[in-house]
């Protein structure tokens, strides 16, 4: 694992921590990418117990073998747990309590209208961005038909209504993070055995890794440095040693990441109140009542398969059609195209009209144990678009990172840059993706091995954050005054405009990342988990 970073800092170089008591309650995964625990096992669980079993029993067993780790410090290994709406229901959570969870979570990722919005399926057709035959796994949330067939509106013809049932039903996701693979495998095996005894079955398991290169940077399967840009949550009280103001570029409200704190829309989510041993809404005046959502979060998981050879062959094909590069006089190559797709160089530096953004020299490390790799300059993430690359001559307007986070680039006048940066930041997500499958030997030759990303997002408002990014930025054909094109990395086959002078280059790019499964999970706080174990 060469020169992997050993400090507690996040991959993106930021470090923010929660103050007590929150650090003890929030799951570790929320605040940390666990860069010191690069190997993990992602286990998708299904609850198969019958009616006689207590819904919380499995959590008690789990606490013995893989206790969920809080965000209060570095651990030698770590476990994170998310539960789907169907999982909570199967655990016996009463409907009145479940009703206090957010609507997208309750409906699941494959609700008819949601599939259309996320561009997964329109009408009866799965999109090209989904594996053949549709996704393999989901929470299999039954559609909510309450009220259907009654009232004035019921007589209207329905426009679109399908029920998707995936082969595998997933009730929970357990991610265990370790320092090395054997440890992770053994631990996962033991955990699976313990869970099995509670009739919880592992229906899908993936070894997932961060995968550092020699420079200590994370590389995803296509070969790009990943995990560079993350928002930095801020809260006057709940963030430890909070600076006087949020970070000017990446600062967001803590409530956009952790439920129950002030969020970017000036609100705090309050969840259903419960008391131990009672599966019903508690008396709001009861001082011992626990807000089930407080210090929890929502986890969006999408298993995205990557066709690495397909991507690079496509990139090479495109490069060949583009002729000579006026800037260098030489031929365009596949890397050049791939880098425009992402918007960053293979090494992670954002593209600028005159090359890439130079790295800032590193200030001398102040932590005594900082490893040598940290003293090397890393890609700079403190950039905006308006001043230096408004027209997208460096980083194309429709590139993955501009669609993922347009920063101040959507402004049309200098006076708008501040407010548009602020408005972009209301849609930031914390990405905790890890990859599965081995790196490809030769990126031009398909080896038939399955690989990709377990794309995982932590956010407090699924609609405003993950779904907004996916729908209004990634998949929107009219993003940024573009037309007829979607995200070149995630979208279906479509045009992709690359800013150039005198006129833009426009190429056609195919789809090489496909959805193989996914859903929305609740990441309970540790006190909430304890309450759930009592079910």
């Amino acid at each position, binding site marked *: 694992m060469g020169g992997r970073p050993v400090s507690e800092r996040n991959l993106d170089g930021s470090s923010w921590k929660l103050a007590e008591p929150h650090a003890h309650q929030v799951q570790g995964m929320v605040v940390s990418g666990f860069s010191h625990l690069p190997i993990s096992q992602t286990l998708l669980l299904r609850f198969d117990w019958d009616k006689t079993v207590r819904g919380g029993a499995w959590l008690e067993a789990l606490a013995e073998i893989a206790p969920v780790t809080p965000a209060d410090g570095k651990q030698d290994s770590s476990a994170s747990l998310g539960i789907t709406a169907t999982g909570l229901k199967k655990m016996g959570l009463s409907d009145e309590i479940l009703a206090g969870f957010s609507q997208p979570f309750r409906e699941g990722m494959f609700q*008819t*209208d949601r599939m*259309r*919005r996320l561009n997964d399926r329109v009408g009866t057709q799965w999109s090209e961005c989904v594996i053949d035959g549709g996704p393999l796994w989901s929470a299999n949330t039954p559609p*909510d038909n*309450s*009220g*259907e067939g*009654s*009232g*004035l*509106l*019921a007589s*209207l013809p*329905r*426009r*679109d*209504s399908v029920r998707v049932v995936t082969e595998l039903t997933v009730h929970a996701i357990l991610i265990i993070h370790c320092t090395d693979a054997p440890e992770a495998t053994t631990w996962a095996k033991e955990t699976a055995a313990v869970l099995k005894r509670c009739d919880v079955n592992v229906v899908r398991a993936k070894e997932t890794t961060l995968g550092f290169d020699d420079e200590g940077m994370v590389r995803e399967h296509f070969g790009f440095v990943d995990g560079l840009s993350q928002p930095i949550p801020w809260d006057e009280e709940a963030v430890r040693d909070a600076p006087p103001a949020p970070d000017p570029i990446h600062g967001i409200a803590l409530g956009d990441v952790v439920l129950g704190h002030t*969020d*970017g*829309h*000036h*609100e705090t989510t309050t969840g259903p109140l419960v008391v131990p041993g009672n599966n019903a809404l508690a008396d709001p005046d009861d001082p011992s009542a626990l807000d089930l959502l407080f210090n929890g979060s929502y986890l969006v998981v999408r298993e995205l398969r990557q066709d690495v050879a397909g991507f690079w062959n496509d990139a090479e094909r495109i490069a060949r*059609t*583009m*002729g*000579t590069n*006026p800037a260098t006089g030489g031929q365009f190559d596949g890397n050049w195209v791939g880098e425009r797709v992402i918007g960053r160089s293979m090494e992670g530096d954002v593209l600028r009209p005159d090359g890439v953004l130079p790295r800032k020299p590193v200030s001398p490390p102040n932590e005594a144990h900082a490893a040598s790799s940290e003293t090397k300059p890393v890609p700079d993430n403190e950039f905006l678009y308006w001043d230096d690359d408004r*027209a997208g001559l460096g980083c194309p307007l429709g590139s993955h990172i501009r669609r993922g986070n347009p920063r101040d680039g*959507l*402004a*049309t006048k200098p006076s*708008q840059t501040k*407010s*548009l940066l*602020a*408005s972009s930041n*209301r*849609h930031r997500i914390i990405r905790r993706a890890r990859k599965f499958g081995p790196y490809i030997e030769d990126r031009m030759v398909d080896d038939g091995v399955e690989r990709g990303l377990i794309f995982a997002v932590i956010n407090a*408002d699924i*609609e*405003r954050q993950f*779904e*907004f990014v996916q*729908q*209004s930025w990634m998949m*929107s*054909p*009219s993003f940024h*005054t573009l*037309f007829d094109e979607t995200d070149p990395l995630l979208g279906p086959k479509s045009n992709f405009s690359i*800013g*150039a*002078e*005198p*006129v*833009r*280059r*426009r*190429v056609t790019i195919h789809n090489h990342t496909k959805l193989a499964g996914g859903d929305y999970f609740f990441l309970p706080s540790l006190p909430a988990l304890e309450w759930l174990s009592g079910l």
Partner: protein
Amino acid sequence: MVESSDYDALLVIEANFDGPPGPFWAQLQALLGERLREVLRCCKRPMDSSACLYDLVTADRSRRDPAPFLECHVIHPKAFFHGNRGLPRERILAEQALAEMVEDRLKDGSSWNGQSSEEVRQALRSELMPKFDWLGNKPATRIPLTETLLDWLKLAALLFAVLHISLVPGAVLAALLGDAALAVLFAVAAIPVWMFFNRYRRPIETVGTSSSVTLLSFARKNLIKILGALAVLFLLSWPISASANVLARDLAWPAAWQASARQLAWGIVWLIAILIPAVLIWMRYLERHDSSQDGPETDPLVLRQMREMEDWIPQNHMVSVVSLRPQIPRRAMSYIGTPLIHLALRAAVHDGYLGSMRTIHCAQWAFVNNGSRLLFLSNYDLSWESYFDDFIEKAHEGVTAVWCGSVGFPPVTMLIEDGAAHGRAFKNWARHSMSPTRFWVSAYPNLTVDQIERNNRIANGLCAARLSPEAARQWAEDL
């Protein structure tokens, strides 16, 4: 169709069209006449004079044209925001065709290497000129200067009327009392008013969203404009009040000018020192006692119906109806404020976008049910969620100003603060007020506001015989 439990269902036909109404009614009649008749047969017979027309139109085997009946029931919006203003549908479609052809000619862009933007533009222009002969003409001005001037004039007239009437009590007092007495009287009134104002102007604890724009900071920022407006107010009011003095107090003209100047000065003092803060205190009192709705419940089935209709094409439609709060200042604000906002939007917005919101085709506000409810109709781009996020993030002050007088709206401070900045509360409230749009036709379903503007920039650029290198480069950025 708008349904609610407090009123009978309301049939709303929204029509946004180019040109005069005559041809519109004829076309509507030709296209939908018989179906409209069927629809009207399900409606209540009106109680006013249009009842006999209603009978004629809806009678068995009637062949009477339903349009005249509908015409009797037209409500013009009190505020209308027109995105892409000045571009009729024909032009939008023509420019789209042109932009598509340009795309087609540019291909992947590689063959233009080494040329300047202006050379590219000239080449395209001469190549496309035969197909699009209008490229030889100067593009029509989107909003004629006269129209803009007229809008400013109307805005000024309305503002003047409101302010002038408001300062009359102060001026009348000045006519009755001497300076010393007035100064004492105003001071005695102003001091408690300002004390109260200062005490209550800030949001109550749970309401504050630390908005960066407050009514006071807004006023401070625009101080010069406000002082200018007061000076204009003074000058315009002067002849009016001088004539009033001549008529009512039998003064000679020179004395009347002098007396009225003094009265107006006192009138303005009254306006600023007493009336405005007093009205604001009244508003603050109402705001602090508002019953905003924390948990409006949207019928899950209605919600599904709405969602089911959304996001099929880049555009979406929404209709919302909310009840207005009953208090006098609230109603007065709504009835006067909405036309003011309308005129201000018309006068000030010329680039087709509403500030940094670039997704609104047309949005309108109208009062229905004897002015007790506010109807809002909007044709917008992208998802409902993103539309409302735009409202919340980019325009919450304006949105709050428009809706703060509506029942259930999230708590507001000083007319424009907080309110819609309470993101989820505002979204829930808005969803709750909506009804599914059952039938909806768009004149150009695949175009967004942004793309229409872009096509327009491309077309305008191509119309020019010559562009400077910098202008040509900017033009090429849109391709």
